[in-house]
């Protein structure tokens, strides 16, 4: 049971990073369906750089740099994807859905290429990523559950909390939400809509990309798998599931993580049952979506201009 929860948390934080990034992007009005691709690129860039660093330094790798360097690479690589998305949708005014889907395909391809330059095994790097508090082991189940994780896991929670704070308590957050709700209003109020959309999308993608890296390094212990895009779709579903609130997503992501791996911990299931289980997060998401739209609560709705490209002189 304990190891189930620990795994659920680690996988969950992958979802959390992905969905927090997507939430930031969506709050600015960008529906980025490229997130699965972005997460692939993030993972590939991070792993590639880790590989490079470790092969350069040999046995004398610095444990801090061995984590921060790939994290930075993953963030930058994914942010470039966000830049691409913004350039297409804000500057060239291409439809967001089309751009997003293209970005996913593109991202999967790019990541496959990058990762083909490595040995597909990052167990050594993963050790650095999973390095945790040394006293965790002395605290029994509590330590194992809450304190045994690596840096990225805590970073995910911190980012989610920080994002919630920025959304609700700062001027930047207010402006960002205004841009996503009603860009014409934001524009008329003197807010630079394009700048906010560019920035939110790049930062959002950067964070999503960390999710991909977290998946390989923290959850899979450094074994590359070609299924990060599936995780990405779930991250998008998680955004809906948690009604655009990263704070709720902290718990929601663990639920998703649990559902996704439940089959491997509950015995006596056939392969078919496994697949059914993996479907659960999507079903739950649809139910939540139904629920919020039936209740017609004004509070828990997507940003009003989500997916709509803004052009000042158009009406």
């Amino acid at each position, binding site marked *: 049971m304990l190891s189930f929860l620990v795994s659920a948390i680690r996988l969950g934080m992958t979802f959390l990073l992905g969905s927090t990034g997507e939430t930031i992007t969506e709050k600015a009005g960008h529906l980025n369906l490229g997130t699965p691709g972005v997460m692939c690129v993030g993972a590939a860039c991070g792993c590639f750089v880790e590989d490079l660093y470790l092969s350069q330094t040999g046995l004398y790798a610095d444990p801090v740099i061995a984590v921060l360097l790939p994290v930075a690479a993953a963030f930058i690589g994914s942010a470039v994807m966000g830049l691409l998305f913004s350039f297409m949708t804000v500057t060239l005014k291409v439809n967001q859905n089309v751009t997003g889907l293209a970005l996913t395909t593109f991202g999967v391809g790019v990541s496959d290429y990058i990762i083909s330059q490595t040995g597909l095994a990052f167990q050594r790097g993963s050790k650095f990523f999973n390095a945790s508090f040394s006293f965790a082991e002395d605290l029994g189940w509590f330590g194992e559950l809450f304190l045994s994780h690596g840096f990225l896991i805590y970073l995910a929670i911190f980012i989610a909390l920080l994002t919630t704070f920025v959304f609700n308590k700062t001027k930047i957050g207010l402006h960002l*939400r205004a841009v996503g709700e009603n860009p014409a209003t934001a524009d008329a*109020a*003197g807010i630079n809509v394009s700048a906010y959309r560019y920035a939110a999308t790049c930062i959002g993608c950067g964070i999503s990309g960390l999710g991909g890296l977290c998946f390989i390094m923290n959850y899979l212990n450094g074994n590359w798998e070609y299924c990060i895009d599936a995780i990405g779709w779930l991250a998008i579903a998680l955004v809906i599931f948690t009604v655009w609130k990263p704070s709720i997503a902290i718990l929601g992501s663990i639920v998703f993580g649990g559902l996704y791996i439940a089959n491997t911990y509950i015995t006596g299931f056939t392969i078919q049952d496994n697949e059914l289980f993996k479907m659960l997060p999507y079903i739950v998401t649809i139910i939540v979506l139904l629920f919020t739209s039936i209740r017609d609560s004004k509070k828990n709705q997507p940003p009003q201009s989500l997916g709509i490209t803004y052009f000042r002189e158009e009406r």
Partner: protein
Amino acid sequence: MNNNIALECRGITKTFGHVVANKNVNLSVKRGEILSILGENGSGKTTLMNMISGIYFPDQGSIFVNGTEVSIRSPKDAFNLKIGMIHQHFKLVDVFDATENIVLGLSGKKFNIKKAKKEIQETCDKYGFEIDLSKKIYDMSVSEKQTVEIVKVLYRGADILILDEPTAVLTPQEIQKLFAVLRRMRDDGKAIIIITHKLHEVLELSDRVSVLRKGEYIGTVNTAESTEQSLTEMMVGEKISLDIDRPEPHDTKDRLVVKGLDCFNADGVKVLDDISFVAKSGEILGIAGIAGSGQRELLEAIAGLQKLSGGEIVYNDPKTEKAENLRNKTPIEIKNLGVRLSFVPEDRLGMGLVGNMGIADNMMLRSYKRGKSMFLERKEPKKLANKIIDDLKVVTPDANTPVRRLSGGNVQKVLVGREIAASPTVLMAAYPVRGLDINSSYTIYNLLTEQKEKGVAVIFVGEDLDVLLDLCDRILVLSDGRVTGIVDGRTAKKEEIGLLMTKSKEGK
């Protein structure tokens, strides 16, 4: 140069594709003055104002603020020049509260909602606004939203204020309040530009009037030296009569007999209380009342769109001579019987038209069911669209231009024209002239009268009591969801109706 001039435009031209929205327009407004801008729908008033507030950028011409030439490239530039605009379609974020909307986009000051709230409250007190700063926009009435817009502009310290059709959706009381505020601001030395179609408001409020016609600047006159008639002539370019023709009804038959209607809204509040009346064929029945007294619910009830808790609606079918109870029918069945509703809501967009489609395609939305083959029948709708464009003088490049691009008033003509074209037996028109210019309004009044002469039972919900008294044969007055009186349109007095409108439940 007169250094009292706050804002001046010279030779402004703006085109959208091949639509010339403004052509060589000049305009000036002084400090401590209220300037009205008058022009038919689509004459380019909003476009001109949008250029002053940085939404659009002029193709040609120059703008001067306090005597210096400026280039306004974005709304932010406009703020920095202390220009504030209250848009025809409010620019507010629905899920934010009033304070958040007001501080939106402010730079420089440290972000401190509490402090801002206090300062905003001071602004409100100074000008006498009553507003709950913590209320969410989606919970607000139209007039509250407008107040937020005005406070927003004032809080930012605007010296030049532009209001684009602020009175189109307000009740007479709210309008008086707004005017009092505007006068106070004028006396405070601010320059105010206001767009309105109601001539009596222009005469009552403004110091000078500038007139636009089809994007061209016609001239500016002092309000004191003008009359409704002279302004209309400037606007339209020819003499037109401002009288509504009201023939005596003949061959009237009881078409719709409403008895004891009761209705509760979603919150369980009684919105219709024991409503009874008769609508006759060949007659225009006016419905007067303060906005939100149950007009919408009543019409929707007849159209089958409201769930009723009591009463009946009997429709005497002229074809079959049978009496039908509409309460047992679906909206589509009711529509097929010939009962038609055209409702122009307070926000005039999003009212049964698809913005991205042209007029012809929007006509098709209503008539597609009649098509014989499985393919879309485009000829008929197109003909209809062109007829409406001609009859109602809709300003549009052609029948296929997306209606979203039309100016607000023209969108509305399309909406009303579509219902009339369906040759109904009962025609319900709610606020069909909301925001329409004088000329178009009269076109609509005449259309309604024409329908009445054809034997249609017309129900007209209006805001302007003068119009109701000129147009309708009988006037039903609603107050708080109850009928407080049904009076004769030819003999009733305005004061009498005003009293009935405010008569409360206790019968005081």
